[in-house]
C-alpha cells in the first residue's frame, strides 16, 4: 500500500517543473517509508539507487537536527528561566541568544544564531526521474531543464501572439494603445534572482538570452495578453514609501503642527530639520538665520524646496546641522525641508517634488584617492624614466 503510493508519487510526471521545489521535510516523509528490499527484485538503475540512499541519509540528518533544535529550545528556556512555550517564537530565541552571546559584528548575518534547521540548510531540487532512471522532463539532458523550459515557453507565447496578431489583421482590427503594457517602472529580475527562481545555475550569457527573448516578447503589440507570464520575471524599480508613507504631523504646545526629520545626510553633514505649520517664513539654522550660510548657492539650496512648493511664507523651519562644509550642510537641510514639507502639501505636489528629485537622498560622496594614482582618477604624469 505504502509502496504503491510512493511509486505513484515518483511516477507522476512532473511536466511543469518551473518552480517545482520540494522542501526537505516533505521529501523526507516520502522516502523514509520505502522498503529498500524491492530494489533487489526490480531492476533499478544504479543512479536511482544512489539517489535514494542519499535522500535517506539526508532525511535522517535533518531529523536529528530537528530533534536537537527542539531540545535546544527546551534547554534555552531552562537557562533563561522562562516557560518553554514562548520559545516557539523565533524572535524570542534571537533575543535570548543575543543576551547570552552578545556580538557587535556589523553584518547581522555574521552574528551567532539559533535557527530551525530548515532555515539553515539550503533547499534542494527534487527527483527528476522515476525509479527506472527515466527523466520526467523532456529537456532533462540539457542539464538546465527549467531554464530552457522558460525560453521555450517564452517563444511559445510569442508564436501564439503572432498568430493572434495575424487573426486580428485579417479582421482588420488594430491594437488599442491604452492596453499596451506600461513597463517603464520595472525591469527584468537579475541573474541571482532568476537562478533562485529556476533552482538552476545559469551563465551570464544565458541570462542575456533570457533578457533578449523576454524583450522581444514585450515589444510585441499584443504582449498584454501574456502579462501574467511577464510579471513573474519583472521587479519594480522603486518602492512607493516616499509618496505613500507620509508621517502625520505632531501638535506642539502652541497648537502648531510640526514634523521633525531626523538623519538628514549629505556628504559629511548630518542634521535634523523641523518644519512648523502654519508659520511666517522664519528660518533658524543652528540658532542663526539664513546668514548662517555665507554663500548664495547654499542659501538658494535652502530656498529650493520652499519656493518649489510655494510654502516660503507658510512654514517655519528650524534646523540643527553639523559636520561637513556649507554646501553639504545646505544639501542636508534641503532634503530635510523637502521631506518635512510632504506632510503639509497636496499629494500631487509631493509627486512633483519627487519628479524634481527633492525627495531623493543624494548619496554621492567624495571619491577616495587610489594608490598608484595622483588622485581619485588622475594618473601620475607618465615619464619614460
Amino acid at each position, binding site marked *: 500500500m505504502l509502496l504503491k503510493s510512493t511509486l505513484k508519487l515518483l511516477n507522476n510526471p512532473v511536466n511543469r517543473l518551473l518552480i517545482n521545489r520540494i522542501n526537505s521535510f516533505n521529501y523526507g516523509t516520502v522516502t523514509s517509508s520505502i522498503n529498500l528490499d524491492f530494489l533487489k527484485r526490480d531492476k533499478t538503475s544504479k543512479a536511482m539507487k544512489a539517489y535514494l540512499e542519499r535522500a535517506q541519509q539526508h532525511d535522517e540528518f535533518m531529523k536529528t537536527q530537528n530533534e536537537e533544535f527542539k531540545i535546544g529550545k527546551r534547554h534555552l528556556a531552562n537557562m533563561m528561566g522562562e516557560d518553554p512555550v514562548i520559545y516557539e517564537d523565533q524572535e524570542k530565541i534571537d533575543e535570548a541568544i543575543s543576551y547570552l552571546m552578545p556580538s557587535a559584528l556589523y553584518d547581522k548575518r555574521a552574528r551567532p544564531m539559533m535557527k530551525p534547521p530548515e532555515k539553515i540548510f539550503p533547499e534542494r531540487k527534487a527527483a527528476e526521474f522515476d525509479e527506472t532512471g527515466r527523466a520526467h522532463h523532456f529537456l532533462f539532458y540539457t542539464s538546465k531543464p527549467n531554464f530552457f523550459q522558460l525560453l521555450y515557453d517564452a517563444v511559445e507565447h510569442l508564436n501564439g501572439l503572432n498568430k493572434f496578431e495575424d487573426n486580428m489583421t485579417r479582421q482588420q482590427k488594430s491594437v488599442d494603445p491604452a492596453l499596451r503594457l*506600461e513597463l*517603464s*517602472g*520595472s*525591469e527584468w529580475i*537579475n*541573474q*541571482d*534572482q532568476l537562478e533562485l527562481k529556476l533552482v538552476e545555475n545559469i551563465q*551570464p*550569457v544565458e*541570462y*542575456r538570452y533570457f533578457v533578449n527573448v523576454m524583450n522581444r516578447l514585450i515589444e510585441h503589440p499584443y504582449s498584454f495578453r501574456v502579462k501574467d507570464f511577464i510579471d513573474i520575471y519583472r521587479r*519594480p*524599480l*522603486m518602492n512607493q514609501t516616499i509618496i505613500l508613507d507620509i508621517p502625520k504631523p505632531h501638535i506642539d504646545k502652541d497648537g502648531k503642527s510640526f514634523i521633525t526629520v531626523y538623519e538628514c545626510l549629505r556628504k559629511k553633514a548630518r542634521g535634523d530639520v523641523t518644519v512648523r505649520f502654519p508659520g511666517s517664513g522664519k528660518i533658524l539654522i543652528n540658532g542663526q538665520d539664513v546668514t548662517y550660510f555665507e*554663500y*548664495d*548657492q*547654499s542659501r*538658494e*539650496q535652502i*530656498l*529650493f524646496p520652499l*519656493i*518649489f512648493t510655494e510654502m516660503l511664507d507658510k512654514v517655519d523651519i528650524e534646523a540643527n546641522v553639523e559636520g561637513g562644509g556649507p*554646501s553639504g550642510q*545646505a*544639501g542636508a537641510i534641503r*532634503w530635510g525641508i523637502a521631506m518635512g514639507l510632504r506632510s503639509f502639501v497636496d499629494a500631487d505636489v509631493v509627486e*512633483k517634488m*519627487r*519628479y*524634481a*528629485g*527633492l525627495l*531623493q*537622498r*543624494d*548619496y*554621492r*560622496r567624495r*571619491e577616495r584617492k587610489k594608490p598608484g594614482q595622483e588622485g581619485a582618477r588622475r594618473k601620475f604624469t607618465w615619464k619614460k624614466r
Partner: protein
Amino acid sequence: MLRNILQFTKFSRASPTILANNYSQYEPHFINPVFKKDEQEALIKSGEISKIAFVPIKAPRNNDNSSVFHDHRVSKMVNYIMQGGKKELARKLMSETFERIKRIQIERYHKAQTEEEKENIVLNPVTILHMAIENVRPILMVTPVRRGGVKYQVPVPISEQSSYYRACKWLVEASREHDRKTHLPEKMAFELLDAANNSGRVVKRKHDLHRLCEANRAYAHYRWS
C-alpha cells in the same frame, strides 16, 4: 560579461556603493530630475510624465534649483569659468560680468534719444548671454583623420550640445586671453556684448572655423571612407 557580473553584485547590496565599471553612485536606471517648474508643466501637458511615474529619480545637484533667477546656460557658464573648484569665485565673476553689461547697457539706454532707440536696447544680461552664445555657436568643425600617413582636417557636423560647449568655451577663452591686468568680468562683458552684436573676436573665430571647413570640403568623404 564583466559588466553583467558587476551589475549583479550591485543588486545584492543594500546601499549604493562605488562600482568598478561606472562610477555613478546611482543605479543605472535612475533618471535626471526635472526641477524647473515650467519644464515639469510641459511634461505633464504632453503626458510624458506617466513614463517616469515609477522610475527613481536622482537628486538635483547643488547648483540646480527652481528659482526664477536660475538659468541653465548661466550655471553651465559658471562651471566653465570655474578653476580649481572655486565655484563661489566663479559665480562672483559671472555676477560682476552681468553687472558690467547692465551698467553699459543702461548708460546707453539713458543716452538714447528716441523711445524707439531705447526699446531696441537689450538690458537683460542673461538675454545678452543667450544671444552671444547663439551667435558664436559653430555648426561644423574639423577633426583630424589619418589617411595614408597624412593627416587631413576633415569637416564634420557637431551635435547641438557640443556646439554650445564650444561657444561657451571660446567666450571664456577669449576673456582670459587679454593682458593679465584687466579683470575677467570686464573683458567678458565686452566679449559678450560684441558677440551679442554678432561682431568681435569670438564670432570671427567661428567664421574662421567655418571657412576652414569650407576649404577642406574636399576631404569630407574621409569621414566615412
